[in-house]
């Protein structure tokens, strides 16, 4: 397992786990956006400052910050 923050631009992987550090409303929000174990996620591009980063999941592009991507884990490819 590797944190989503390590996924290189242009690469895809499958989400394996959302860490316990993300809980409550924040966890709910991620699940509603399509961040859940089994979903395929692609690192599309970075913003000018490198943060946040854009990811495509379930057909939509969403922005995630490092505080989140450090605790979302994907399968190693």
């Amino acid at each position: 397992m590797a944190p989503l923050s390590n996924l290189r631009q242009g690469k895809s992987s499958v989400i394996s786990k959302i860490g316990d550090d993300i809980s409550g409303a924040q966890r709910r929000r991620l699940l509603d956006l399509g961040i859940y174990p089994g979903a395929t996620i692609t690192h599309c591009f970075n913003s000018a400052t490198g943060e946040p980063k854009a990811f495509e999941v379930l057909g939509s592009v969403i922005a995630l910050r490092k505080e989140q991507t450090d605790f979302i884990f994907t399968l190693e490819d």
Partner: protein
Amino acid sequence: MPSEHGLLSQTFRIHQLQKLGVNLDKWDYVVALAGNPNTGKSTVFNSLTGLRQHTGNWPGKTVNRAEGAFSYKDNRYKIVDLPGTYSLLSTSEDEEIARNFILFGQPDVTLIVADATRLERNLNLTLQILEITPNAVLCLNLMDEAKRKGIKINEKALQQRLGIPVITTTARYGDGMEALLYAIEQVATDAWPTQQRFKITVPEKLEESIHALESDLKELYPDLPNTRWIALRLLEGDERVVDALKNDEFSGLMNSFQQPPLDLNAELDVLNTNEASS
């Protein structure tokens, strides 16, 4: 080139459908329009009402919701366009408006408009709505795009699993709108068989806790709809719902949707009279 509005009225004429615009004097049934952002909710809204999005104010909150009306066969329908959301469970204001209307406004039909090209994403909200009410219709919109992308949807299987009518449409060309109207009528008039409706089963222990909380809630608020849903959120520790209970907001919410919409002309008269007399 015809305007968008002209094009819609031309291509979209259905026998027995009368677009009533903002004519909201009286209605037989209320339809709530819910769905993810950018699924074509407003296109569906406009093509049923003949409007180009009308916004109105409601008592209690300073938010704009769109409301319109149409009649189909013998019934008049009021249709309320809710904000587009991915969920009803997170804590943004849009989601709260949508969920409060579905929970406390108790629409006769909740019409869920989904993007057929992003079905998986859209089914999240669909299931959350079915958790609140089985009186729903799923409209799989943007079918032209789905076809172009080679996406095939087995809507019969989906209908069977969800227990609600599933209708495929391309609202911008009026495709499927007649079937959609028929489905809305079926659910509104209770002609749709309820025994097939969707039910989420939970472990027995959780079920016991839900029951205990539900009976407490019913004692506090005998008229409260959807106590099961509220009990589930309380068990989940949903802060917004816990606060609503603590601050006794449920009665206010129930009442705010029972009132007829504000009569703006009457308001204006009052305003003019006050001005004239001062």
